Structure formats: structure tokens, C-alpha cells
């Protein structure tokens, strides 16, 4: 299930041209962004050098990939500065970067030119184990270079009324993973606790635990059931720690003050993220019809600000799927207008203690926006710099969501300099 997207139909600056135009922006971060924009394709030669005993292979994930397939490929890449690139396997016809072997080493190449030598993600030891209930631990917690991801449930209720976020393929990918790999759609807290316990036996391997799942609308109040699920899972994870709090991130729906307080007080959670996805009322209504109907743009923002009172400045964030604000049928026709509007809203949030990060939008075949093209590299570079500058201006930390604790936000990669 792949879609042939024609690349470079627009006039846009190349990687080298962007790097030359923005000399204060790190080239390695520009490389990361461009690799995420265009995806990667592994050459046969590089796949021949992959060692499944050493390298982490693709494990269950909340979202699918640009090639629409579940294949035994390396999970992702690391650059020489420690920067993580979460990669998307991409059909060769869509002009991805290549992962190849150069002088016997893994390398990113483009048009026959060496871009950077890279490392493949190392496989954690627990990936070879199963829980007492017989589930592969890699299906319970997927690893990043320094983070554990727990996707406790992968169904999103917004999809029930065809109001899923337009860039998202969570439900189609969940079905595919369940059918092809047997990944459970809902995790048992006991399995999560056991997997975390095993992961902690590898000293130095992890610095953060991130939980996320689809939105659950049920409960006495909107999202009550979702919060219940998270509390149950976080409490199970907490059994493995000597301290009440442990470095952690929850990426959930927009909760009310009571729900936020419950999460903070009853669990070891240290940070809270709730993704607005786009920072503009009109774009939000178009890109996130479910979020728009049930909470609304301003309601979502308001709840983020409430969270600052509970979790503290620097511990609350919102994520953008950057580029979707420029999708067809969306809010902005020009990158300049989209950038200005996004940064203005991000500043409003930063003033109130909410930090904004973005991921590069990958148009996936299982999503409503499947056949579209993401924004230019220059746009993403300017957005990363703009969000970073706001964090510097307002003294906002992003420790819980930086290059190491997450690794999927070009803007928070820059916080290594703060």
C-alpha cells in the first residue's frame, strides 16, 4: 500500500542551500529534518550489514510508515552528535535518502553523495524476552536510544465519527499491526510493569518513560476513562522505582484540572504533553475535527495552561505535526504566513509556561492526508529556530522532551545549547 508522491515539484532550497542560507543553524539538525521530510530507503548492501543481535529492528509503533508496510528493517538512526532521527521507510520512487554502506560503515547518501556516517539504534537486552503472559517485551515497550515508549492502547475514539486527525493513521496502522504481527491493542499493567523492570536491568540504557495512546472519550466527564487507564499503568510502572516520581512524559488528551491533579498526585508522572497539532484556530478545525468538536482550540490551550499550575513551568508541552497547517484544504497557502501565525501562538503559550515542540509531518498512506506533500526544509528550519528562540526568550526548559528524552523534535534538539 504505497502512494507515489511526486517530490520536488515545488521550487525549494536544497539541503546545501538551506545550510548556506542559515549558517547559525546546525547542519546536522538540518540533515535530520530533511531525512524525516523525505524518508529513507535501505539499500540491499546496508541490509546485509545489519545484525539483528546488535541492532534494534522496527518494533510496534503507534503510527505507520510511508511505505505502508511492516518489514524487518532497522528501527532508526543516530547522527555523530547524538541526534536521533526517527526514520520512515519510504519507497524509492518518492526520492528518499539512502542508507547505504560507505567504506564498510553505515551512511546516509543522496544522489550518490555521502551526507553523513550514521549508527543504527542499538537493541536493548529486554527485546529478546517475553513477559510471564507470553508477550514479546518489544510489543509492550518500544525503545528509543534513551527512552521507553509505552503505547498502552492504540485505538482513538475520534476515529469513530470519522473525526480523526487528518494526518494520523493510528487506527489503520493498529489494525495492520494486530493482523500481521499480533501486537495487542491494549496493554495490561502487569505486562508493562514487568517489561519496565526488565529494561531497568540494563544500567545507563534509559532516561525517560513516555506513555501515549489514542483519545478515549468515555467516562463521567470527557476523558475520565483515558485518565483511569494512564493512572493504572503509571502506578504499575511506579512499582519499579524507589522514588515516588520518575522521569516520565504522558502525551494525552486535554484534561481538566481535576484529571490533571489526579495524574500528578496519584502517579510518578513528571511531565504532561497534550498536542494541539497546529497552532491556529482554523487549521485546528480542519486538521483535527475530533479535537475541535469535543474540546475546541481555545479549550485545548486553556487546559494546557491549567497543567502548568500543576506540573510546573518547563514540564508542560504541546506538540505540532508541522506542515499540516499547509496541507491542501487546510488553513494557510503560504509558508511565511503559516510560520508567522504558528510562532505568534507559540509565543502566547510560552508566556504562560507551555513549551511547543514539533515533529516533521510524514504523509502516510493510512491517513486522510495520504497523498500530500509536507513543507519545505527551509520552513522546518525556520520553525525549529523560532521555537528554540522562544524557549530562550522565556527561560522555558524542555528537559523532558529534548534530544535524548525524546529525539523527535528538531527544535528541542537545539535546546542542548540552552
Amino acid at each position, binding site marked *: 500500500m504505497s502512494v507515489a508522491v511526486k517530490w520536488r515539484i515545488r521550487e525549494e532550497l536544497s539541503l546545501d542551500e538551506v545550510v548556506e542560507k542559515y549558517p547559525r543553524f*546546525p*547542519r*546536522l*539538525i538540518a540533515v535530520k529534518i530533511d531525512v524525516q521530510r523525505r524518508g529513507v530507503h535501505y539499500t540491499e548492501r546496508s541490509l546485509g550489514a545489519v545484525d539483528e543481535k546488535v541492532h534494534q529492528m522496527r518494533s510496534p509503533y503507534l503510527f505507520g510508515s510511508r511505505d505502508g508496510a511492516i518489514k524487518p528493517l532497522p528501527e532508526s538512526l*543516530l547522527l*555523530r*552528535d*547524538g541526534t536521533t532521527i526517527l526514520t520512515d521507510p519510504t519507497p524509492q520512487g518518492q526520492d528518499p535518502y539512502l542508507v547505504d554502506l560507505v567504506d564498510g560503515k553505515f551512511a546516509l547518501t543522496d544522489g550518490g553523495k555521502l551526507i553523513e556516517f550514521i*549508527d543504527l*539504534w*542499538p537493541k536493548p537486552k529486554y527485546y529478546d524476552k517475553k513477559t510471564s503472559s507470553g508477550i514479546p517485551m518489544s510489543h509492550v515497550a518500544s525503545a528509543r*536510544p*534513551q527512552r521507553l515508549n509505552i503505547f498502552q492502547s492504540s485505538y482513538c475514539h475520534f476515529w469513530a465519527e470519522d473525526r480523526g486527525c487528518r494526518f494520523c493513521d493510528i487506527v489503520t496502522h493498529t489494525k495492520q499491526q494486530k493482523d500481521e504481527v499480533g501486537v495487542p491493542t491494549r496493554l495490561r499493567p502487569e505486562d508493562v510493569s514487568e517489561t519496565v523492570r526488565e529494561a531497568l536491568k*540494563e*544500567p*545507563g*540504557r534509559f532516561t525517560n518513560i513516555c506513555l501515549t495512546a489514542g483519545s478515549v472519550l468515555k467516562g463521567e466527564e470527557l476523558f475520565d476513562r483515558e485518565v483511569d487507564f494512564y493512572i493504572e499503568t503509571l502506578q504499575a510502572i511506579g512499582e519499579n522505582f524507589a522514588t515516588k516520581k520518575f522521569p516520565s512524559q504522558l502525551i494525552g488528551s486535554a484534561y481538566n484540572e481535576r484529571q490533571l491533579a489526579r495524574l500528578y498526585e496519584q502517579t510518578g508522572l513528571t511531565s504532561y504533553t497534550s498536542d494541539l497539532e497546529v497552532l491556529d484556530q482554523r487549521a485546528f478545525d480542519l486538521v483535527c475535527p475530533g479535537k475541535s468538536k469535543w474540546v475546541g482550540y481555545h479549550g485545548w490551550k486553556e487546559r494546557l495552561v491549567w497543567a502548568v499550575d500543576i506540573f510546573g513551568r518547563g514540564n508542560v508541552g504541546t506538540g505540532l505535526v508541522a506542515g499540516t497547517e499547509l496541507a491542501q484544504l487546510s488553513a494557510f497557502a503560504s509558508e511565511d504566513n503559516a510560520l508567522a501565525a504558528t510562532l505568534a501562538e507559540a509565543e502566547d503559550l510560552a508566556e504562560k509556561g507551555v513549551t511547543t515542540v514539533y515533529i516533521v509531518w510524514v504523509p502516510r498512506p493510512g491517513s486522510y492526508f495520504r497523498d500530500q506533500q509536507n513543507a519545505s526544509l527551509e520552513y522546518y528550519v525556520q520553525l525549529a529556530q523560532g521555537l528554540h528562540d522562544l524557549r530562550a526568550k522565556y527561560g522555558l526548559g524542555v528537559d523532558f522532551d529534548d534530544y*535524548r528524552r525524546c529525539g523527535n523534535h528538531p527544535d528541542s534538539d537545539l535546546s*542542548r*545549547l*540552552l
Partner: protein
Amino acid sequence: MAKKLTKDIIDLIHDPATTTVLATLDGNGFPEAVVTDTIRVDEHGNLLYLELLESSGTNRNLVRSIWFNGRVAVAVGGKAGERWQIKGRPVKTHITGDLFLQHYQEVREQRGDVELAAVWVIEPDEVADERFETRKSEEERAHPSFRHLDRLARTA
């Protein structure tokens, strides 16, 4: 152009009695120098700097160096008067993987409950003998004018 460290310098760096100082530049171009005992030499002759503090100024400066092709300097002082200055470039940082995990365990065995943020690989491109006697004879050979006349005066 990478410079090879001699066995004498490598042994000196690994001697616990040796003092090492790592000098970096901050975002304003101001120098920052720290005394450190976490510099090693790997099998390729590169310096390894174990950074224990993610938020340290040195760590930030090393990130800036690897991003913008900056250089750093390491001064090495031995108990027998040896003095070396090694200049180089950070070429890689390990924040995960076997090398990182190995050093994570090592520093915790040596120091107790500490963190390891990164293992920086610094490739030497300049190595200079900074012992005073060496530098003095070099200067007198290259700059004979750089001396006070009284040092040349006839003694009665």
C-alpha cells in the same frame, strides 16, 4: 589532519597523578576551562572525554563545537614536569550504545551514584610540548629579539 598521540602522552593522560584541563569556547567566544579527570585515550588515538553533567557549560560548548566545526584544547600536566597541549575537534558523541554503557558502569563503579551524559570523541589535530625548557629554547631560536639586554651583558 589527525595527529597521533605518542605512547608517552597516552600513558601520561592515563596516570591518575596527571592534571588535565579541557578548554572550550562558549556561544560568545569566551573561553571556559575545567580541570577534569575523565579524559581517556581510545584505541584509535582519539581523546575520550566523559561528561558527567548534561547541563554543564563544557557539554554545551562541545555540542556547539561539533555543530559548527569548533576546536577544543586539552592541557596535560604530569608530576615530573611534563606539559602538553593537545588541540582537536569533537567528531562524535556517544549517548547510547556499547561504549557509552561501558563507561557508564565504569564511572559509577569509581565514583558511586553519578550520571554519565556523554562520551565525547575528540580527534587531535595538534600536539605541542609545552614544557618551559622546550618552549624557551624554541622561542630563543625563532625570536632572538625577544630578550632583555641585561641577559646578554658581559659579567665582570
